[in-house]
């Protein structure tokens, strides 16, 4: 049974609808990555799931409790969860008192607080600052204080709202490692929102994509990144090729789509007549001459029209009747002596050609 089950969640601030029709379930023990552009409602959704603020409508069950019906249990439920925010938040008190806050709210005895706070500060390497004023620490140190403040309360569900957005790579790695360890060793359920796609892929077992106030797609990282559910999701997860086209034939599980002057074969069952062809740049192979043997269903001659460095990769744009962007390692592009105007061949298997309806969400 899901540890969090949200249905039709809606949130309105004044006249502004921030969330609508949000359906999401979180399984116990998983790390769920919440990705989406800024302003898509990730932070608001996390606060609603953590019972910091109530939704304007919908159903929400946490730990199997119907939170709409049982408002009186919110505090108890909330005390089984914890949340780390994007901006490092510390209070104008000592580091010790900062970390002790959650425990004091829970009425934990003084000696237990003492022991737990010291352990927690040891774990994040801040023991020497225990008596310092928390506001005097650097941003990265403050965020570590904030993390230990959450972790001393042993939350069963941990919410992380873009926790590393403002941090240096070292602090980011530390926090990612702690989160991954907690999940693996203590079975802590983790919801992490991020706009760092790589972080989402690194950490999450499952990813939910938020677009314009709703969860547009939830699934495995592979599904989300390679089979995005709509043009907008495809754009957000960084798919280089999103080409409008029209289905011309369906045959034996293969769909043929006319995109400009080129016909592309896809293994996706056709969702509509008017579609977008969605292809990740790294799924396209580029050859100096026509390959002698090629399993891929699609093989086209093409001419290089542009090269854009994306160190350590390059985006090579080719014209094969329609424009395609090929992502390849810079070293390989060098080895192939790719240059603008060069005549090449591109190949791509039908199974990497994903189709989404043009009139879809």
């Amino acid at each position, binding site marked *: 049974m899901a540890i969090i089950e949200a249905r039709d969640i809606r949130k309105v601030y004044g006249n502004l609808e921030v969330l609508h029709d949000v359906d999401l379930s979180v399984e116990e023990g998983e790390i769920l990555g919440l990705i989406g552009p800024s302003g898509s409602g990730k932070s608001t959704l996390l606060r609603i799931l953590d019972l910091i*603020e*109530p939704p304007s409508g919908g159903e929400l069950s946490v730990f199997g409790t119907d939170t709409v019906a049982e*408002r*009186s249990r*919110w*505090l108890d439920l909330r005390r089984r969860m914890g949340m780390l925010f994007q901006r490092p938040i510390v209070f104008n008190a000592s580091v010790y008192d900062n970390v002790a806050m959650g425990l004091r709210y829970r009425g934990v005895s003084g000696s237990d607080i003492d022991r737990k706070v010291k352990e927690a500060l040891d774990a994040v390497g801040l023991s020497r600052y225990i008596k310092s004023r928390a506001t005097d620490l650097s941003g990265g140190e403050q965020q570590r204080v904030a993390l230990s403040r959450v972790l001393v309360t042993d939350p069963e569900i941990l919410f992380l709202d873009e926790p590393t957005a403002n941090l240096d790579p070292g602090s980011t790695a530390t926090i990612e490692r702690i989160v991954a360890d907690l999940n693996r060793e203590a079975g802590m359920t983790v919801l992490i929102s991020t706009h760092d796609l790589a972080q989402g892929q690194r950490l999450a077992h499952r990813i939910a994509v938020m677009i314009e106030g709703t969860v547009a797609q939830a699934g495995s990282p592979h599904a989300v990144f390679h089979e995005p559910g709509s043009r907008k999701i495809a754009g957000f997860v960084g798919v280089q090729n999103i080409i409008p086209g029209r289905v011309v034939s369906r045959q034996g599980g293969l769909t043929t789509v006319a995109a400009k002057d080129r016909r592309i074969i896809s293994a996706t069952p056709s969702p509509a007549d008017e579609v977008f062809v969605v292809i990740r740049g790294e799924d396209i192979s580029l050859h100096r001459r026509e390959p002698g043997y090629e399993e891929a269903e699609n093989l086209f001659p093409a001419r290089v029209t542009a090269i854009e460095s994306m160190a350590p990769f390059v985006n090579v744009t080719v014209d094969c009747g329609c424009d395609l962007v090929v992502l390849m390692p810079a070293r390989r592009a060098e080895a192939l002596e790719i240059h603008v105007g060069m005549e090449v061949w591109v190949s791509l298997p039908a199974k990497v050609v994903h189709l989404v309806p043009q009139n879809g969400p």
Partner: protein
Amino acid sequence: MKMNVAILSAGTIAILFILALLAGCTGTAPGENVTPNVTTTAPAAGANVLKIATTTSLENTGLLAELERVYERETGMDLQFIAQGTGQALDTARRGDVDLVLVHAPALEKEFEDEGYGIDPRCIAYNYFIIVGPEDDPAKIRNMSAVEAFRTIAIAGMNNTPGVAFVSRGDNSGTHAQEKALWKEAGYNYTTEILDSGAWYVDAGKGMGDTLILADEKKAYTLSDEGTYLSFANRLALVPIISESTELMNRYSAIAVNPAKYPNTNARGAADFINWLISDEGKQLIGDFGKVEFGKPLFVPLYAPECTGPPFNCTCAEPVPTPA
């Protein structure tokens, strides 16, 4: 931030309770604060405090401080003087905010008594108003009578004679009342002919001391009681131009606030103090005041039967009845 209703309402009740307690505290606070007065002088409130509205001219001479020192030592009564103009002092008494008044404007005093607010008036002492001005006397009024002098100043002022100016208290005080009476006797309607008649007439709206300082700065004439002038004389270039004219006689009286109008005034304290003022001891104190500092007394105590005849026409010896 929303919590369950029970906790929320419990919090509300707790805060309201605290507020109610606080309100209770502050309600009683002023009373408590009055009693343990931090200064040594005053066990305030009730029968041990006598509040007296008086004139700035009396306060500024230092006479009141002297009376207070002696009377408080003898009786333990805390005398509290509120220095205002005579008109304002009488209004304060009309509202029952003080226990008696010590003033010097016979016409205003009579009004106050006729209205039933003031009882047991006793005249205490007198001195003279003086007309002070610059040594060179630009309006040439020396040796005139007071009324003549006022007329001369007005004519010179309205003709824009250089150097001629007059500063008025303008605060409805006893001195101001005297000044208005003199303009009237000189043949002017104060409101229509003197006020706003030109730059020569300066309406200060201040106490006697301030008015003297202002007149000094402007090298102008002004009407002052003798006591205040003497106590300020060493800081002023102004000199007395006309003094001891009978038209300038200045009589001080004490009047108690009628306890029938305001039962919560200290009527007994007021009667006691008036009786002390008209006692030989009080009169001697008043008569001696200023001898050391100024070389001459600032006030002349009134004795019977002199006080009952003109120009005083007042009661100065008969003790006032002490209320139970």
